[in-house]
């Protein structure tokens, strides 16, 4: 029925099956939308956040999706600025994933603030000393860039492409895409960093506080670095999942392995920097404020030292080692293990930099605070996942996302 919209030379599942899949994701999406409306109409009392836990699940989700969406900027940077040409075979998907991640982040932020109708004050009354201002500006600018990067792909839809103006526009945008990508990389470098700065500049919160370079704490650079390292892993992971669902090979192994190799080296260097940062913080910064490392990892199981071990060793060093070795990369099981660990690792890092910062008491007469998100928070956090699934499904079905698909899956 929709065959006129499907790219030429590829095969797609029946519209019925597709609709069913979309319906399932749509149901989840509606649940999230309902929770979102509750938060907007009734206010943030719908969450389990409180005055001690002002930043919670959502801010973690924001940081996490942006880190994971980092595949877009870094792949774009490698493809357009460094000139890794093979990556053109995965860049489209990386851009779509990035677009989903960033639009989700903006949506979550719009739910997370107490006065969403006034959220534009962040632009109008900007305090340039605030990391959040930097985040807001770079995030929205970079989202514009991602949209610009996504548009030509949409315009390449079989039917849209028939319109001469759109065809020309798409063509022209491809021509100057390197400039957009470079600008995007510049913006992305800053906002990934400023997200790291969000916790790093909190000099009243010893867990988050990290000294750094000029106005930027070390977490600024660590966040950018880790997003560049783990974002592409997420792109690989989503591509792999897509391949499993569609039961097709969509991207050639050499492309994946190239991206994995670069990620591996990024991760390896990042994790060294992270260890140094942690070491310095644990031995210099924290003691100057009267804390020992173990003060931050209470005997409370939820915030135990295990989380540091998990983040740095299991989800940092191990995937890095796998990815930088040829044997590791070439073994698809090991590769995927490393990719998944890296994705978990960056999520844990963002988790710790948000939630542990909040949970940890600073005044000596206060206690650790535990927080369990309300269903509304969970639903609105899952909402972007459902939304992402739908966008990916639509894009895959109707747009020429994977240039190698035809070659890898010839139709008789």
């Amino acid at each position: 029925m929709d065959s006129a919209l499907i790219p030429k030379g590829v095969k797609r599942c029946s519209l019925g099956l597709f609709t069913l899949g979309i319906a399932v994701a749509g149901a989840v999406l509606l649940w999230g939308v309902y929770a979102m409306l509750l938060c907007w109409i009734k206010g943030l009392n719908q969450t389990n956040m409180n005055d001690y836990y002002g930043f919670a699940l959502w801010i973690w989700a924001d940081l996490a999706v942006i880190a994971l969406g980092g595949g877009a900027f870094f792949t774009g940077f490698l493809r357009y600025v460094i000139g890794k040409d093979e990556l053109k075979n995965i860049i489209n998907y990386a851009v779509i994933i990035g677009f989903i991640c960033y639009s989700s982040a903006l949506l979550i932020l719009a739910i997370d603030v107490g006065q969403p109708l006034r959220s534009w004050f962040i632009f109008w009354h900007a305090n340039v000393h605030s990391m959040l201002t930097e985040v807001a500006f770079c995030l929205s600018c970079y989202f514009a860039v991602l949209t610009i990067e996504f548009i030509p792909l949409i315009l390449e839809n079989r039917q849209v492409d028939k319109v001469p103006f759109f065809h020309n526009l798409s063509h022209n945008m491809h021509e100057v895409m390197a400039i957009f990508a470079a600008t995007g990389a510049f913006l992305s470098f800053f906002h990934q960093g400023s997200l790291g700065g969000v916790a790093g500049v909190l000099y009243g919160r010893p867990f988050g506080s990290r000294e750094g370079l000029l106005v930027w704490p070390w977490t600024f650079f660590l966040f950018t670095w880790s997003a560049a390292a783990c974002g592409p892993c997420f792109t690989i992971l989503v591509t792999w999942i897509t391949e499993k669902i569609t039961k097709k090979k969509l991207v050639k192994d050499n492309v994946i392995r190239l991206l994995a190799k670069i990620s591996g080296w990024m991760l390896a260097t990042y994790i060294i920097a992270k260890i140094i940062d942690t070491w310095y913080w644990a031995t210099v910064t924290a003691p100057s404020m009267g804390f020992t490392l173990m003060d931050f990892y209470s005997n409370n199981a939820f915030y135990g030292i295990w989380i540091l071990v998990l983040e740095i060793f299991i989800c940092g060093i191990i995937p890095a080692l796998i990815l930088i070795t040829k044997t590791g990369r070439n073994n698809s099981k090991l590769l995927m293990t490393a990719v998944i660990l890296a994705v978990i690792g960056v999520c844990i890092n963002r988790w710790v930099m948000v939630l542990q910062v909040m949970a940890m008491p600073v005044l000596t007469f206060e206690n650790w605070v535990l927080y369990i998100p309300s269903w509304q928070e969970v639903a609105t956090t899952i909402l972007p996942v459902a939304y992402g699934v739908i966008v990916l499904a639509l894009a895959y079905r109707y747009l020429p996302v994977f240039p190698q698909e035809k070659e890898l899956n010839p139709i008789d």
Partner: protein
Amino acid sequence: MKKEHTHENAKKFGMVIDLDKCTGCGACMVACMAENNVPFKKDESEKLDSITWIRVYKLTNGKSFPDTEICYLPKPCMHCSGIGEHGHSPCVSVCPATATDYDHTTGIVSQIYTRCFGCRYCMAACPYHARYFNWWDPVWPEGMEKSLNPDVSPRMRGVVEKCSFCFHRYQAAMDKAYTEGRRELEEDEYQTACTQACPAGAITFGDLNNPDHKVHELKKSPNAFRLLERLKTNPKVYYLSSRDWVRKAGDNYLEAENKVKKK
């Protein structure tokens, strides 16, 4: 942010709270609520979302019966000056929309409710938990809104609020002084609601820069300390206690330093 950076006449309003005198009676909390139209809910026992601009903490020395000791510690906003008195308090520097600001003429950290869009970054930044979010619409039972003070606007849902050192009282006192042709205030012309109400007289409020004000001397007491001085937030609320363990509870110390801070 940096207007009127003239330090000559700059005031630095601050508080000295004598914990030896504080009885934990709670009058400061209610005086503040009544003065500043602080809202209340039907259940306020969930202290993590209960708005109390000044909150009295109960500290114990952790010893068992009968060596136990208690000390009450009222905690308003510390109106941190930040490193080098630059006004980069933990919260002001992070607010993305300039909804909270450091007034260099008074040293007071303000909060503009109509500008705040509720991102709560300032709350994450404040180690004192002196900032409170309006998770709910404020609701006054029918008739009780008559007791609202017109000098302080009630806050809407979704914004952050905190102790303002009763800044509206400063404005009112300044207005009065100006109409009388004066440019300076007497010490007792501007006092916060909590200071005024405290039955114990435990709170002293004034200009820390002014040698004629009581706080100027009191803050130099060997018993004086501030909360979390090591974080370099540079608070303007000082505490006095003759007890070592109380002074020590003001900050974090490593085991090795356990010999009590300088006196």
